[in-house]
């Protein structure tokens, strides 16, 4: 995708037609349905959607963290030229944390409560072959300083830190080996607005300094509006719309994107009644036959009930909506 400021050079990550299924006795549920995305070095992509739209499953699929009953049923995840799908745990261990790290949603659950921050940083480094005590100490202090935490907190335990500091120390941990890609799953959702804002600014500054690419998953579209280069809106396991962030915010094409943007009140401008998006996402065990958004769509057309839309290219944006069928090139997907 030719967007983003740093589109030169080969892609860091190229996900093609990735599908993830939850295989259960009652049949399988396709939680991620043929999703493709490409990420250039230093690019920031935001993935947004409601709960249950498959965004976290997609992340886990990219990071190869899926556990049964979930499994990848198709597609590839090429990271730095290597297809990650099907690698053994040992092969993955070499890549994980060194080249690709993950920041989870709730730092309180992701950090070990009975070990100090310093001990947890040490663990990660020893697992990747850094054993000299002074190197570990130097680097630990360095990464904490990078995220704006005083290195005295190396001796602190997670419960002694505020929510914002815990998330910052998670990011510090992800930065230990200066990876090429950091995957973040709603890292700010447990924080209040001021801490959220300062963490976002921090991530952006670190990214500009060290040049890693970021995949940032959130349900709050307004949060990424100023930070991401590229935006991908997911609905019911599929890409609903993907394109340049400012273009998407300027003129959302998919009715779902427009609905998400109408879902949060603004601090400026006239006060007006909002309706959000009525209804809830479909049960993925029995997705609607045609467009998956049709039952909730304010612009629904008769053919939406029967014809599943492909991804249509309109300008620089790909959109899955029959309104745009024939408007540009036909979609690559059936």
């Amino acid at each position: 995708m030719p967007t983003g400021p740093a589109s030169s050079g080969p892609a860091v990550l190229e996900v093609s037609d990735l599908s993830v299924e939850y295989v259960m006795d009652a049949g399988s549920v396709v939680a991620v349905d043929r999703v493709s995305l490409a990420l250039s070095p230093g690019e920031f992509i935001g993935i947004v959607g409601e709960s249950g739209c498959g965004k976290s499953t997609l992340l886990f699929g990219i990071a190869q963290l899926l556990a049964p009953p979930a499994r990848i049923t198709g597609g590839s995840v090429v990271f730095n030229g290597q297809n990650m799908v099907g690698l053994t745990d040992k092969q993955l261990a070499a890549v994980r944390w060194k080249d690709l790290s993950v920041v989870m949603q709730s730092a309180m659950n992701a950090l070990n409560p009975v070990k100090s921050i310093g001990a947890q940083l040490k663990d990660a480094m020893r697992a990747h072959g850094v054993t000299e005590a002074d190197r570990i100490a130097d680097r630990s202090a360095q990464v904490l300083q990078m995220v704006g935490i005083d290195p005295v907190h190396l001796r602190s335990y997670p419960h002694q830190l505020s929510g914002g500091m815990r998330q910052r120390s998670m990011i510090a941990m992800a930065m230990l080996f200066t990876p090429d890609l950091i995957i973040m799953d709603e890292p700010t959702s447990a924080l209040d607005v001021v801490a959220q804002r300062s963490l976002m600014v921090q991530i952006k500054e670190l990214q500009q300094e060290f040049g890693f690419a970021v995949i940032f998953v959130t349900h709050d579209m307004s949060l990424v509006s100023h930070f991401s280069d590229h935006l991908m809106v997911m609905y019911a396991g599929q890409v609903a719309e993907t394109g340049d962030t400012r273009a998407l915010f300027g003129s959302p094409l998919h009715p779902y994107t427009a609905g998400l943007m109408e879902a949060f009140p603004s601090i400026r401008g006239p006060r007006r009644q909002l309706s959000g998006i009525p209804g809830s996402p479909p049960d993925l065990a029995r997705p609607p036959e045609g467009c998956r958004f049709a039952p909730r769509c304010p612009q629904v057309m008769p053919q939406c009930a029967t014809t599943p839309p492909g991804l249509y290219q309109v300008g620089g944006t790909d959109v899955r909506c029959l309104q745009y069928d024939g408007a540009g090139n036909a979609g690559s997907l059936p």
Partner: protein
Amino acid sequence: MTGPLLAAAEPLLRTEGLTKHFKIGNALSQQVLHAVDDVGLSVGERQIVALAGESGSGKSTIARLLAKIYKPTSGEIYFQGKPLSSMRSRADTLHYTGLVPMVFQDPFSSINPVFRVSHGVLRGLKLHRPELSRQQRYAEALRVFDVVGLSPAAEVMQRYPHELSGGQRQRVGFAQALALRPRLILADEPVSMLDVSIRIGLLNLMVQLRDSEDVSILYITHDLASARYVADRLVIMYAAQIAEAGPIEEVLANPRHPYTQLLLSAVPDPKAPLGVGAETDKGEPPKVIDPTPGCRFRWRCPLATGECHSVTPPLRELLPAHTVACHVARADAVTEAFR
């Protein structure tokens, strides 16, 4: 707020010098954590008051004081003009907690998972409105489930919490509160755990409850945009004290306290011009342990003067009904600290 002439304008709920301190540390290092300090708050009839501030600013402690979960260290809460400290009997307390119920932040842990969702509503009715017969209780439960938008009510009532989405569960929380015929609902961050697309439905529900059920709501939040959407008045808390209070549109349009400006600058707004503010504040609200005089915001405030370091700023009425606790704030101009 003195003089018999004002008695007619007595708000639904009013606090005077409300203070809650917690003792922390062991026997050797007795320290006092000030969770709420000298707060004067009032909520009128059919009014939504937003209580906003960062984590740890004392918002939830105020809600718990108002719900009689905590006893104030000092100060008084007046409900319909009567002081709560005069309330001694269990019957009086039960009556009060029915009139002022609470809705909690986490819809996943605040409903008992082993009972059907009707259980909480029916049980509340049995306890607080014993005059109702079994059939009347059921009818009332149906009514409140319908009011909060859980339809078909008869069917939803029979479900277990795990069968409902987060937004639906939070509606059950409001149904439980509503069944008690409340005058004031204490809503402690009721939407912060929900998806953005579901939040707006609950905010609309709060407005609807105010307009059609004549309920007042104390809406505790850190999100000023949602506060603006529902509330009539805004009270900003910082480090256990009120920093600024007034009619919400007025406060947000002309924020006088530097802290209010900081909160406003942190609200993500896709319509704002592109660019990452370099002057973003990285501080955190202090834990108020054995405080010394002076403004508690002074360490984060770019406008702090010598006076701010030695004298605690009192809450003054800078503009009609708009009060600010800041030495630097002026009535005739907005002194910009953050933007």
